[in-house]
């Protein structure tokens, strides 16, 4: 049995997809200027980490890799229940690709105490590549389970229900293990006034790649984002109204007949 579980949880301060607007004429999204927030699935990961700590003890360390503004995501993680927070940042963070982020997560968690369980969202709300968790495990050669919708701590590892397209696979894995979680695993608690106040006072440890042993040339992007655009799908935007539900329904039926989609 692991004496004191070392739980790490990664949080991304990603683009808020619900608030992001594309340029009307070009359809281009100005990613640099887009509003940001904590990626949805990562909140589930923080919640799960917190529940495990509440039940089994140990420590929860939240880590974010990216902009200085990612402090906000870490404060939210602390407000949910993380004990410690680490921000890995440097000039040029915006060019870090999934490879660089995974390498930084491996290096930072290794340098700052190591992990028994590393939790992440199964993908980020903005990029949704689903690569970071498996990349960490691939780099370390350790066990990993993606798409968890239920997680149980056992004496020497975890029992996980892995949510696949057509089946649920139940697997057991020993520590150290990387687990990525879906939204079905829990409902993240809402930070209260008190927890938010406490989080605002908590110190966030800020480290550079060099501090955790990675030089800038080890983080040179292997994938470069060139443009992000919202494809325009023209819609007719016809509003159908009427004096009664029957009248509205009749008009819609006639419109759909006109389209040739109902007989």
């Amino acid at each position, binding site marked *: 049995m692991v004496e004191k579980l070392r739980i790490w949880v990664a949080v991304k301060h990603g683009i808020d997809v619900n608030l992001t607007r594309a340029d009307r004429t070009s359809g281009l999204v100005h990613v640099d200027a887009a509003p940001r927030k904590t990626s949805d699935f990562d909140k589930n990961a923080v919640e799960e980490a917190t529940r495990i700590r509440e039940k089994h003890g140990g420590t929860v360390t939240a880590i974010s890799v990216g902009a200085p503004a990612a402090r906000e995501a870490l404060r939210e993680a602390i407000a949910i229940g993380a004990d410690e927070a680490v921000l890995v940042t440097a000039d040029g963070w915006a060019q870090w690709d999934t490879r660089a982020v995974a390498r930084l997560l491996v290096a930072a968690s290794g340098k700052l105490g190591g992990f028994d369980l590393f939790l992440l969202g199964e993908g980020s709300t903005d990029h949704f590549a*689903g690569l970071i968790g498996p990349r960490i495990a691939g780099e370390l050669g350790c066990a990993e389970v993606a798409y968890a919708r239920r997680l149980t701590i056992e004496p020497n590892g975890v029992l996980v229900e892995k949510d696949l397209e057509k089946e649920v696979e139940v697997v057991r894995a020993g520590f150290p293990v990387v687990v990525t979680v879906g939204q079905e695993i829990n409902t993240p608690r809402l930070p209260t006034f008190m927890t938010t106040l406490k989080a605002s006072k908590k110190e966030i440890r800020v480290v550079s790649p060099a501090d955790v042993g990675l030089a800038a040339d080890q983080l040179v992007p292997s994938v470069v984002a060139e443009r992000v655009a919202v494809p325009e799908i023209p819609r007719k935007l016809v509003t159908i109204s009427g004096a009664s539900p029957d009248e509205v329904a009749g008009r819609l039926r006639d419109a759909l007949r006109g389209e040739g989609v109902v007989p």
Partner: protein
Amino acid sequence: MTAEVILCYSEDDAVAEGLVRLARSLTPDVASRVRAVVLPGASPEAADRLVAAGAHAVHTVAGAGSSDPHVRAEMLRAAVAELSPTLLLVGSTKRGREVAGRLAGALDWPAATGVTTVRLDGDGIRVEREALSGNAVAVERIVRRPAIVAVMSGTTGPAPSVVDGAERRELSVPSSSPGTEPVEVRPKAGGQLEIEKADRIVTIGRGLKKKEDLGMIEALARTLGAEVGCTRPLAAESGWLTDDHWIGLTGHRVHPTLYVAVGVSGAVQHLVGMRSSKIVVAINKDPNAPIFAQADYRISGDLYQIVPALTKALGG
């Protein structure tokens, strides 16, 4: 132009065939090779299907099957070491993305998932992939090769000519110990419906007040000859409908001729699942619901009044 070696792998035969066709379309030259890898546990006809899809060679890994991502990634790593591909194509299924990530981490290769178009581009690869919860398209350049690209189902090429005398080889790989131990596999409840193939869909969202009211939605769907779809809350939270009805980013992507969204607000994670629909009808009591910006015909009103009236108007 240097000769390419594109290695294709998917745990799903149909997806793997699509990858082989895509790989052939990327390499029209005579020197390049499209090689497919079949891991233990695949269907007995997998190798034949990949040859029929146009592979120059099919490499079958012998040994015991395992669903463990570490074991699968290690088998693929051995295949990569043996065959030196310039590109590894996998399906962007859940297992495909997972194995892509593990392998990319182990090999320190670039990787992209959720890819809808692939173009070899000098030393790199230019891909289009879904971004911003699927509502935007990102153009990304993978700056070096070899690399791993996980493509969405449907991203494929025309059927190429079958290669005469395609090579079939067994590939022996060193065994590796699994990172996970299987306990059980449970098929998901439902799971029979293939909503991505439906020509008409009536989708119900959070506007439905209770499970019993589904009957009203089903009646409209029956009248239209449509399947019933749903948004995330109805499948993942309340469980009123099984996951095979779920349309959205983590559910299914659909492209029907007619899509009727009832009581669906239109969260971006839902819109990605339905934006390829031809004609979209939205019925919602909130005139500011985002779904209305994505609809051809918009009815602002109470679904409990509109839906029965529409069923009746359509002769149901």
